[in-house]
């Protein structure tokens, strides 16, 4: 098979990090080449270089054997490279046809030739087997169909190389399976595909070859048929294998959090929740697993008081707290680590000290009668930065100047030091380096051992498997199973996450929940 695209010695540096370190990569005609790696391994950066969004500091790109340099995405498109972004580049208030022809519109005289645009889209749909109604508004389509529009957009621009960036992140399993079918079809017709993913099973299912990235480098390229998930996993994480934490014995106490029959319709771009019931006890970590977009984040935000449920009750230590505000919940001992620390967890332009006081600034000992005791606030911050190993250990530093790991330590310090009865941690280690991840894990376990209840929501299955005492699996807005840690294997939880065994027992309720979860989401 001939090589259509070849990367040689690509290096890309950002302030403080080498995102790509002398990466060699090639793509053959008609193949699906998976680029596998954990968050921050450099796979997105290399693809942004291929699609012209970044220019490399070193190295060359050969297209059909000829060296090319892209000054921007436009030139990459002209060269036949189409990128399907994880966050779609679609305009919800315009039609499918308008979105597809945008930038290369057929015209009749001065006017946009709407009929031809529609016809062109129909022909493309037929040719690639991607059925779509050209006149629908994109904002009304499901995520899966929107992705289809994105792919058609690339083909309309003459792409013969397709880059799919984490294309299944927002899809339901059915939609993902359909996508894989389409990918195989396209490859057969001669399209070459880079498939970016961090999910082993997907890569094994669809790829011809797999390149594994780790810490900015390409560590291996293997034919998919000659490798195994185990081998790939080891390559992804390196020698240190998986993060294993020492976890003491599970001695659960009284239920702290009790959720019963919680439901919420899909709206405002948020997924639905249906009939969720579970408990989190004192002294345990309850892990919430699931594919992104199956309602975990919505559930977490309902419990943190940020979203209001339509149905059901939430009890905290036996008290009904359904619908209470974040402040009221905080005062009852609920702490919350939000998934996006820069947008939700911190006010980046305030100091570390002020961020540490962001929740209890209003009450003693930090404040009295509406006046802030600046000295106390600074003193406590000095103690906390030491205790939580925030570097630099300077409470007057502006939060923005800290590294991601240290920013997360500030949040952790703030939430854990409030001695919560219940800590809700959503994606607490996303994007952190190994050292910081370990720190966060140790702190969560220490909190559990001190008798608090911990609800851990994470997209990293391994994190949940290594930390949680019990594991709840979310699928399409439902809690489809709750397993004890010793009965939870990677395979079993993984299957449940894809709804494999959920379909049967869920029975009559599935239709309603499914309808909710499949509702339109804007890109």
């Amino acid at each position: 098979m001939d090589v259509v695209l070849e990367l040689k010695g690509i290096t890309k540096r950002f302030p403080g990090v080498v995102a790509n370190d002398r990466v060699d990569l090639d793509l053959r005609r008609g193949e699906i080449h998976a680029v596998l790696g954990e968050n921050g391994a450099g796979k997105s950066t290399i693809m942004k270089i291929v699609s012209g969004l970044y220019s490399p500091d070193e190295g060359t790109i050969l297209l059909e054997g000829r060296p090319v340099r892209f000054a921007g995405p436009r030139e990459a498109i002209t060269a036949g490279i189409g990128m399907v972004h994880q966050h779609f580049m679609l305009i919800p208030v315009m039609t499918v046809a308008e979105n597809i022809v945008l930038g290369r519109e057929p015209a009749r005289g001065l006017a946009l030739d709407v009929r031809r645009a529609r016809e062109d889209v129909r022909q493309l749909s037929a040719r690639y087997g991607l059925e779509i109604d050209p006149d629908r508004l994109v904002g009304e389509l499901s995520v899966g169909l929107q992705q289809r529009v994105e792919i058609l957009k690339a083909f309309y621009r003459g792409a013969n190389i397709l880059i799919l960036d984490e294309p299944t992140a927002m899809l339901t399993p059915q939609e993902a399976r359909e996508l894989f079918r389409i990918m195989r079809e396209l490859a057969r017709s001669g399209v070459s595909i880079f498939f970016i993913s961090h999910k082993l099973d997907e890569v094994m299912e669809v790829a011809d070859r797999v390149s594994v990235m780790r810490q900015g480098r390409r560590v291996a390229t293997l034919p998919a048929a000659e490798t195994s998930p185990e081998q790939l996993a080891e390559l992804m994480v390196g020698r240190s294998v998986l993060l294993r934490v020492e976890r003491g014995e599970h001695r659960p106490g009284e239920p702290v959090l009790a959720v019963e029959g919680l439901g919420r319709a899909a709206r405002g771009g948020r997924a639905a929740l249906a009939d969720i019931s579970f408990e989190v006890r004192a002294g345990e970590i309850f892990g919430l697993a699931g594919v992104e977009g199956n309602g975990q984040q919505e559930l977490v935000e309902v419990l943190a008081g940020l979203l209001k449920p339509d149905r059901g009750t939430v009890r905290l230590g036996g008290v009904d707290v359904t619908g209470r505000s974040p402040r009221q919940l905080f005062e009852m001992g609920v702490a919350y680590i939000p998934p996006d620390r820069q947008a939700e967890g911190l006010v980046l332009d305030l100091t570390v000290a002020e961020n540490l006081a962001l929740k209890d600034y209003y009450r003693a000992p930090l404040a009295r009668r509406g006046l802030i005791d600046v000295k106390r606030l600074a003193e406590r911050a000095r103690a906390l930065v030491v205790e939580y190993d925030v570097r630099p250990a300077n409470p007057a530093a502006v939060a923005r100047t800290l590294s991601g790991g240290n920013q997360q330590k500030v949040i952790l310090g703030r939430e854990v030091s409030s001695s919560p009865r219940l800590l809700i941690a959503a994606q607490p280690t996303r994007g952190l380096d190994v050292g910081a991840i370990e720190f966060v894990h140790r702190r969560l376990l220490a909190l559990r051992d001190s008798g608090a209840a911990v609800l851990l929501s994470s997209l990293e299955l391994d994190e949940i498997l290594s930390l949680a005492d019990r594991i709840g699996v979310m699928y399409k807005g439902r809690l489809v199973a709750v397993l004890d840690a010793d009965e939870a294997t990677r395979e079993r939880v993984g299957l449940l996450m894809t709804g494999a065994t959920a379909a049967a027992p869920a029975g009559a309720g599935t239709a309603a929940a499914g309808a909710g979860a499949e509702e339109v989401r804007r890109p």
Partner: protein
Amino acid sequence: MNGSEIFNAQLWMTALSSATPLALAALGGTFSERTGVVNIAMEGMMLTGAFVAVLASATLHSAFLGLAAAILSGMLMAVLFAWGTIRYKADQVVVGMAINVLAAGLTGYLLNAIYGFTGTPPDTPRLPDVTIPGLAQMPGIGAVLGRADLLVYVMLLLVPLSHYFLFRTPLGLRMRAVGEHPQAADTAGIDVNRLRFLGVLISGALSGMAGAYISIGVLNAFNVNMTNGRGYIALAAMIFGNWKPVGAFLAAALFGLANALAINLQGLEGWHVSKDFVLMIPYALTILALAGIVRRTTPPAADGIPYEPGH
């Protein structure tokens, strides 16, 4: 005059005349904001146009050259506005204010420096009135629409043309795409900043034209701060018109009618509503529209947000 006589031909003529500069500027604002640039600088562009129209018309003894110069001067202010907001990604509202203050200062300064305390020359040529044969003879409507200033007809023509341009042509599609989702437009090969520049430039041209109407369309003179906040009412009309050319025109017409009513009310006996209350109507309606009480308005999704590529 009593209550039933208030809706006379004179009222409709005044309404149309008041609506014309508002509609011209509001149409321009639609282009700017549809590409994602919030444009409160219309007031300043208009004021500049009004002054330059008189200056050029008086100096070159041609109202048409005055009009052309007014359009160009509006575009010049637009270039300055675009340079700050698009090239340097500065806050659009603040730069808009800067343009307005600057325009007030420059026109006031130049008026004084060039014409002293006597004001602009009394023999400044004015834009001609145009008579539409046939229409002028028709009863009722003929008195209002049959004979009017040239720019009134230009404005009436520009309404459907703007609509066609924005919603039926490839360039219009691209401009709207830029205002809705600049990243999407960029990855589709569209030069976001160039189209934003174009939108602002069109806005400058139409605001300059609106200014010319005020100074050499209705009158043939310029005085300090002559536009008197019409740029802001035009902005209100564009918002009330839901960022659409036809809507902007209808809103401008409504606001023009309010203005005409306010003028007519002054001569009315036994009527206790002050003209000042009628003049509040456009502002009050715009607030209600923004709050979703009168009607639902939806601005372009990326309106007001400078574009940073690769984000």
